[in-house]
């Protein structure tokens, strides 16, 4: 996350936090994925990382980087808020969400195994960190 955060200015982060807050007010729950994100996900170009953030699976392109950064800024804002509410660190909360997000992947989607490799989800249970519930 460090390399991503360092590239993102605080103002962009603040804007993202504001956008997430506004979004939460405007559309309370069960909003749909952005079409570009949904397409990249279905195509296996992006996948769920172990640490709770989205990763690029294939060769990086500016479009993929934009999609992934956008999602990860929003995720970090949510993790930050929920971690605080649960007296946990962002990393702890993000790792837990990563466990759940990998479990929730659908067959054909990509996820990161504990050894760091990208795997394609099958009907079988995903390979997860032994600490995952």
């Amino acid at each position, binding site marked *: 996350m460090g390399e991503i955060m360092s590239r993102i200015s605080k103002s962009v982060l603040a804007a993202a936090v504001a956008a997430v807050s506004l979004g939460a007010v405007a559309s309370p729950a069960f909003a749909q994925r952005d079409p570009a994100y949904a397409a990249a996900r279905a195509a296996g170009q992006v996948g769920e990382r172990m640490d709770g953030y989205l990763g690029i699976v294939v060769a990086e392109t500016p479009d993929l980087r934009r999609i992934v950064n956008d999602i990860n800024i929003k995720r970090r804002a*949510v993790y930050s808020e929920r971690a605080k509410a649960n007296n*946990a660190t962002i990393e702890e909360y993000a*790792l837990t969400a990563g466990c759940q997000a990998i479990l929730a992947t659908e067959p054909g989607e990509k996820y990161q195994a504990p050894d760091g490799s990208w795997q394609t989800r099958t009907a079988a249970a995903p390979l997860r960190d032994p600490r995952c519930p």
Partner: protein
Amino acid sequence: MDYGKSTWRVAAIMLATAALGGCITVNAPEEPIVIELNVNIRQEVIYRLAEDAGNTIEENADIF
């Protein structure tokens, strides 16, 4: 003369023994030292947060 020689010999042996006895041998570990990512995050913490994290993912389906 003989007395002096043996004194030196005894002294030299004692010194050598003391030096050897004071040696501390440090061996490098055979296994490489691996620092595991997030090793400080304990399983019990993850279990405590699991339900909340699951709800968070459902409620923010657009970014998960």
